[in-house]
């Protein structure tokens, strides 16, 4: 049996969705890990999947890779069932830990992957080079550092030239230099138009590398947009202005103000629509010296993922 994608369905840049999750629910016994996620990802997007431990990120990734099936809903990757997309090399992944054998060399590990995907020695050399480990090909995997092992996993993931690359907490445990090298390799690779989904808890990575940030909490998507949009969604922005003699009650009556704080002549106003508020302040009041600031992604993360319901599943 052979299963071949006709070349015209090569989805890079075409209209087909890279990922289509529809009403996906995943339960393990009484625990609901994923609670109705619907998510569409277009080809070429670089997506960060953020959320606290137990939010359902890994369960979602497992379903995208066909390692598990959803309890309810549908998962499609490039219009196919995930395990089929995996077998065809349309999607590959760099997992967080494990998945390597210590008594293989770096090169043999990639060679074996090539054998399984029916690729030749040229692709092995290319994958090693692009992952930045061509110089340690003869080294035993057990003698490689954590960062080198992670780049080896990256080389294996690159081998089938996937349309979609999934990275699950890819830089956990790496030092700063290792993390930098790893992201340099990923960023160079993403220029080719590959779709990338990465789960991470380094917020600065999501901010720096993702086109789109998806926040997951308790198995649901709680925010979805660009890093800037998500920051605004979570916290709104704050206007700081000089406004002598203003009282808190007056300020709260202004359009769109959520919280107000008076510090002498200075006032701090939080709002979801700071543009409209700024216009109002300048046109209708005596406010001056306006500064508009957004909270950083870290604060947005804490706001969005704060879990005030006790006893949530881990």
């Amino acid at each position, binding site marked *: *049996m052979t299963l*071949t994608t006709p070349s015209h369905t090569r989805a890079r840049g075409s209209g087909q969705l890279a990922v289509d999750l529809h009403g996906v629910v995943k339960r393990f016994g009484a625990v609901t890990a994923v609670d109705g996620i619907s998510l569409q990802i277009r080809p070429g997007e670089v997506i960060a999947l953020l959320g606290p431990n137990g939010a359902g990120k890994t369960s979602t990734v497992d379903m995208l890779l066909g390692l598990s099936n959803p309890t309810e809903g549908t998962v499609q990757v490039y219009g196919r069932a995930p395990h089929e997309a995996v077998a065809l090399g*349309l999607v590959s992944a760099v*997992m967080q830990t494990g*998945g390597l054998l210590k008594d293989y060399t770096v090169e043999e590990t990639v*060679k074996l992957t090539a054998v*399984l995907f029916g690729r030749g020695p040229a692709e092995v050399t290319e994958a090693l080079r692009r992952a930045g480990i061509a110089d340690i090909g003869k080294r035993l995997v057990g003698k490689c550092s954590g960062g080198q092992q992670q780049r080896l996993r990256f080389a*294996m993931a690159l081998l089938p030239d996937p349309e979609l690359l999934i990275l699950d907490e890819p830089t956990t445990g790496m030092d700063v230099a290792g993390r930098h090298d790893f992201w340099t390799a990923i960023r160079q690779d993403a220029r080719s138009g590959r779709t990338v989904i990465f789960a991470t808890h380094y917020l600065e990575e999501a901010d720096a590398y993702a086109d789109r940030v998806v926040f997951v909490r308790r198995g649901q998507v709680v925010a979805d947009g660009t890093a800037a949009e998500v920051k605004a969604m979570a916290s709104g922005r704050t206007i700081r202005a000089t406004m002598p003699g203003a009282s808190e009650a007056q300020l709260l009556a202004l359009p769109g103000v959520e919280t107000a704080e008076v510090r002498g002549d200075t006032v701090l106003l939080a709002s979801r629509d700071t543009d409209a508020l700024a216009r109002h302040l300048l046109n209708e009041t005596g406010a001056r010296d306006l500064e508009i600031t957004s909270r950083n992604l870290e604060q947005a993360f804490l706001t969005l993922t704060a879990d005030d319901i006790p006893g949530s599943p881990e």
Partner: protein
Amino acid sequence: MTTTAMPPARSLPKFGGFSLGMIKLELRRMIRNRRTVIFTFIMPAVFFLLFGTNASSRTQPAGSGNVTAYILVSMAVYGAMLSTTSGGAMVSVERAAGWSRQLRLTPLKPVAYIAVKLVLAMLIGLASVLVTFLVGSFSGAQLPLHAWIECGLLAWVCALVFAAFGLFMGYLLPSENVMQILGPVLAVLSFAGGLFVPLDALGHTFATIAKFTPVYGVGELARYPLVHDGNLWLAALNVVVWTAIFSAGAMWRFRRDTARV
């Protein structure tokens, strides 16, 4: 923008990913493992030299050869058994390392993976029998030519029981050093099955029980071309039944392991 080259056709590998290339790489890795080499090539030959080559063994006849030959065949069976078990039990290490999960991100079909493991187990089993026989041929074992060939083939082929046993245990035990458990287990089974000591030397009750243990059948069958003694059908039945039991066990654990939940 430049136009991109035609993308490679995406197709699934033949035979679910079972390939000579994979077997070659896996074999190289196996031989790199010192413990495997000791179990496969060194231990059976050393046991033979220790217990089978004294003067009385060389002069005392056994069937159409001498006692040295009798012990040689037993040790070849023991070596084949150790090798195929450790070959099958490789799945335990690979599961512990998360390698099995990694392989699920490739087109390799689980059944093809098992087939590769069985081929590897049988290959090192064959190598073990050949090395032991080679040492034996220089150390005073006397067998007719047909017995060399038939005993060797039987020792090897019947060790399939233990390839299935290794797989079963490999899926059952999550340990990284599963052979540290299985090594002693095999030694006990070898005693119980009359591989190290002839069953006549044991009491009657014990000798009867021995016939139901998994090593008994393999040993009896493998020595038959030399001694032409014992109940051939009972031995064959023993091998078939134990192969079926271990294979069923391996399939059961394997299905559980690869199920998408």
